[in-house]
């Protein structure tokens, strides 16, 4: 049932041979980190106003929008001697279960106060599932690992407000 002949079979190696003269396209991750595009949805972040008050008012819209049900918000009232957020209430507990999150970004679409955004950090693996439950303090803090981001002007037009600070 021989259909090709052995000489023709070798012709295919020409394609392989040509690659010698090309620059490799592989990137030496993790030494080199390719800049992600600005719209890339990674690790979440919570934001604060310039005066230090939290933007989140504990309305739970993000939890309502989440298709994976991975956000838990428990709100409490702001008082005169304990003012946390700019609104009437604040999120006493704000947890995201990162092992359930599907990074669809519905939470940032849902948030009417631009309090939660999806940043560009993607290196969020942990050894234990418990460590993947992000608390409010973790989400409010600056991410430890920074990721380079490609030109926002070119790859994200118009710049949505909610991505400006992420």
């Amino acid at each position, binding site marked *: 049932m021989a259909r090709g002949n052995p000489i023709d*079979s070798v012709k295919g190696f020409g394609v*392989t041979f040509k690659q010698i003269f090309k620059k490799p396209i592989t990137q030496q991750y993790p030494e080199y980190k390719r800049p992600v595009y600005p719209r*890339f949805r990674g690790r979440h972040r919570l934001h604060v106003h310039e005066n230090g008050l939290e933007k989140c008012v504990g309305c739970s819209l993000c939890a309502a929008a989440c298709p994976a049900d991975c956000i838990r918000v428990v709100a409490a009232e702001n008082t005169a001697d304990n003012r946390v957020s700019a609104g009437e209430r604040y999120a006493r507990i704000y947890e995201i279960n990162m092992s359930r999150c599907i990074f*669809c*970004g519905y939470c940032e679409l849902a948030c*009417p106060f631009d309090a939660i955004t999806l940043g560009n950090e993607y290196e969020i693996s942990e050894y234990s599932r418990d460590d993947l439950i992000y608390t409010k303090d973790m989400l409010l803090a600056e991410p430890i690992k920074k990721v380079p981001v490609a030109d926002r002007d070119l790859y994200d037009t118009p710049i949505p407000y909610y991505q400006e600070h992420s």
Partner: protein
Amino acid sequence: MAIASDRPRIYESSRVPSPIPTVLQVPEELRGSEDLLQVNFGPNHPSTHGVLRLIVDLHGENVVGLEAVIGYLHTGFEKNMEQKTWWKAITYPERIDYLSFQNNELVFVLAIEKLLGLEVPEKATWMRTCLCELNRIHSHLVWLGTAALELGAISMFWYCFRERDSVLDLYEMVCGARMHTRYFQAGGLAEDIPRGFFPEARKFVDWMPKAVDDYERLVDQNEIWLERTKGLGLLSAEDAIALGQSGPVLRGSGVDWDLRRAQPYLAYEQLDFRVPTYPNGDVWDRYKVHMDEMRESTRIVAQCLDRLEGMEGQPWIADDRKVVLPPREELHTSMESLIHHFKIVTEGYRVPEGEVYVALESARGELGCYVVSDGGPKPWRVKFRAPSFVALEATATCMTDALVADLIAIVGSLDTVMGEVDR
């Protein structure tokens, strides 16, 4: 649906119109024979395209019996979607067939739009066409890479995944995620197209035909490849139709049928493309169909880009405040927008009562979505007609007179994605 009349008869004893078995029975005379060896192929065999389990009866090297066991990847997508509002359910279909995710998303979004009677802006329609074709290329590249890898052509795998990565980069740029994008929303697109998309996509469109030529040069004349694909896994046109095949499997059997042309959706009516068909119904022909489709899809993407480039500044999503989230800048200024926003996010939009079936040509064939709405904020029933599941039914028919080594080539050529088979 036309069958080429000059098509050579593939093999005698075509089983039409008697029912076609989807299980290959061990012949009467071999039953109970001591020469029979029953082998479990999978469920975690590296060349099963996911967690497919095939129980294979071997007589020497010949496959005499075959039964597919599925369900290892069942996740209950359809049932899960019934628990979510329409808006949230959009994130589910793209995870069913994770290789042609954008087509899966589109079919559900089209079903919602059909029930709502929603008009989609022109820009959204063209961008959807563009992304769906890019997605077809992506899916075919993964197929080609893995199918070739299973037959021992490892360098093919690297080259295919190189191009696949540039498609995924385009997705990352436009949609924010490399695979599961949720970019199509009822009414249009979730976000505008970034300016940087066009030059990058042009680069890809210019490169892709050369890459396909390279793939063909790599294997087309290779003796091993020819031996392992030509004349194997025969599926006649009659059998293919009787088994309900669609997509590359059907077109590889010589049936000229493509939903993009037969029932045009999106912008396919205004596009110039060819539907490749090959007459023999073997593994080789299915491979050729995939190759030609990649070239055609590249042409379609180029045409879409031509149109999209002239549409800057046009709306990308319908202006229907009952369904579409209001623009973000209005949330801080307009009370009415804020109320609509809260209503849509918490309760979801309501879709009129009714049932609808939408079918489109995904990378694997006719992908159908049957949706029933009871008028509430959640779908009452969602059912997908998965082309992979149907393709898997042809395994037993294709396996006539196959050797155990051909089994891998044949299962690979049917291009099944187990996520879609089990759902």
